[in-house]
């Protein structure tokens, strides 16, 4: 199976040594979506939130501490950039690193809220993310061991699929799920989206969604089920 069947025709590649980025319309669309959302985060100032009061016609303004707000926004921007990078990379190694970066940044975003319940959720998410590095890196290593390369443009040319490749892919998917897939669950568990000054925390949802979609594409490229 060709890469071009999955994501449309290849529009171009950027060879950086042995790391090759490639662009298809599918990847480019997700890349642009992640970058656009990151740009929105960078230019918006959401530190004050206006809430309607119940029973009266007045509005109530909720402000958040500037330092804490800046930290969270910076982490959200890093998360968006890492998501955008993971969309266009043509290298399993880069993809793994971007996923772990998103995982660490998500821990930071969740933990920046200094409330005991939120810190509880951040701690549990951190444990899951740490456990998730075992299948993530282990899966990438097994794919490397069974194919001899971690460049997707090389892997797509291998005509066969071995059981070790399938096993590595399953581990890899488990790792991605543990690293970023469960992040929205823990963010929602702590009701983070209702805390003032944090509507842009939806980047956790967006990055999780885009990464899972891209992971499925990569696993189809590796295992060639069609």
């Amino acid at each position, binding site marked *: 199976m060709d890469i071009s069947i999955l994501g449309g025709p290849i529009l171009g590649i950027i060879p950086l040594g042995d790391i090759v980025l490639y662009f298809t319309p599918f990847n480019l669309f997700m890349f642009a979506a992640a970058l656009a959302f990151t740009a929105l985060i960078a230019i918006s100032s959401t530190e004050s939130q206006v809430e309607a009061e119940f029973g009266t016609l007045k509005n109530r303004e909720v402000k958040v501490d500037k330092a804490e707000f800046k930290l969270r926004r910076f982490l959200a921007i890093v998360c968006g950039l890492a998501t955008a990078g993971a969309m266009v990379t043509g290298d399993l190694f880069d993809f793994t690193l971007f996923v772990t970066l998103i995982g660490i940044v998500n821990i930071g975003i969740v933990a920046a809220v200094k409330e005991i319940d939120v810190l509880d959720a951040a*701690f549990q998410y951190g444990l899951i993310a740490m456990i998730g590095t075992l299948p993530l890196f282990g899966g990438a290593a097994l794919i490397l061991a069974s194919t001899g390369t971690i460049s997707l443009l090389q892997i797509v040319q291998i005509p066969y699929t071995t059981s070790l490749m399938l096993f590595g892919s399953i581990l890899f998917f488990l790792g991605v799920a543990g690293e970023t897939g469960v992040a929205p669950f823990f963010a929602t568990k702590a009701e983070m989206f209702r805390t003032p000054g944090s509507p842009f925390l939806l980047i956790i949802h967006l990055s999780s969604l885009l990464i899972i979609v891209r992971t499925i594409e990569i696993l189809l490229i590796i295992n060639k089920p069609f």
Partner: protein
Amino acid sequence: MTATVLVPNVVSPVVVGLFLPAVFTGIIVGLIGLLSISYQKNDLHALILTDIVGIGMLIIVASVGTDLAESLVLPGLVVELAEIMAISEILMSREIRKQGKTVDLMPMPLNLDMEVLTTTPIFFAIILVAYGAFLSGFTGGAIAGGGILFYVITRLARGVPANIWEGLAGASGIAWCLWLVGFLIFFVAPDYWLLALFLSAFGVFIKVTFKASLVGVMGREEFKKE
């Protein structure tokens, strides 16, 4: 659907035969870690046990044993360390917050009162620095830095202020530039690879040495607070 053997012939079959046992060892280590986490109710113990799962990840990645696998080992280790530090910060922040205090940095209870600190500081420091210089590179830097750090701690224990360590910070920066220049020579003028190798090796040696001894400076700042 025949898988070709990717391992070159020069590798001994014993080493090749170790691959699958190593992978299964890693997975079993991970499962043991997960099992013990599921029995554990103490948060701190769960965090420490999670590190065992990370070690299982390192075993799987190291079992592949190629240079590409090494490029996965280093980020894996760094990610593991970063996550365990982040989660332990979250845990401490939560526990301090539960007691109703607001402490940002972790307190350093350094009441060192051991005999070895007053009898043999210079001897140990010289041996560690000499051995580190013999090793050179990153490992040697860490060992020599440990020697200097040990010396600083002993001086502090005897009550002598150590004022010269700030200058080391500047030297560390210059050594880091040497390291960068060495890498640049590798790419620009590969003929001078020996010069580049020594620049990089001793640049990173001096940098890591001074970096580790800077921990001593920070420790002294903590002492001033008491």
